[in-house]
């Protein structure tokens, strides 16, 4: 780091701000303390899951129209 022999106010304030800024490591610790490490499922995950299962079953068990037409 080079600094002038007589820094002006902006340079000093920039250095002060840099020294006082929240370090990335501290910020990450704060973020991790708030956000669960293993994100929880949404509140509607069970109904969403059931809806997808039901739709899959319905599709799988529906007899296609051509097949119905071919029936005796």
């Amino acid at each position, binding site marked *: 780091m080079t600094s002038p022999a007589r820094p002006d*106010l902006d340079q000093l304030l920039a250095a002060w701000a840099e020294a006082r800024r929240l370090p990335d490591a501290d910020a990450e610790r704060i973020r991790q303390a708030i*956000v669960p490490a293993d994100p929880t499922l949404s509140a509607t995950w069970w109904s969403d899951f059931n809806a997808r299962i039901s739709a899959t079953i319905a599709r799988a068990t529906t007899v296609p129209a051509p097949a119905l037409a071919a029936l005796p």
Partner: protein
Amino acid sequence: MTTGSDDAAVFTRLFDAHRDAVHAYFLGRVADHELARDLVQETFLRAWRRLSEVGPLPADRQRAWLFTVGRNLAIDSYRAGATRRATEASLRQAAAATRETAVPGPHLEAEYGERLAQLEDAIRELPEEQRVILSMATAGGLTSREIGEALGEPAGTVRYRLGQARKQLAAALDLKEDR
């Protein structure tokens, strides 16, 4: 359908966008680094709990929401009495720490370090309203308009107080201040 990982991504964007500004605000209010970090965490914890409300907002309204929470937390903390004592103690420590770390070394020249310590002393002497604005402008990187929106003050008032703070600092450090 939103998943936990979606929420985490939304929160991380919000956190990264505003963390420096919120931290700079608390640094100006309470000066104590530990307390400032705690208050940042509490502010964003509340945002996390209300993410469905805060997450979709545009950045300026997210900031306004966060600072409303932050101001209330700072007031609560101040009322508790801990903040004022911590502020006074921390400002003294910060000035001393700046002196200790700013001695001649591989990266700092002696005179430069001494000037930084003088600046720290001068910032300590600023009225709180000026110190908060100065911190938000320098460490938080916010414009006068953004600071005004965050604090509920006209941008002109913010610019005036920032100018007053700079004049006081320049006078304390025997520097010319043209702004």
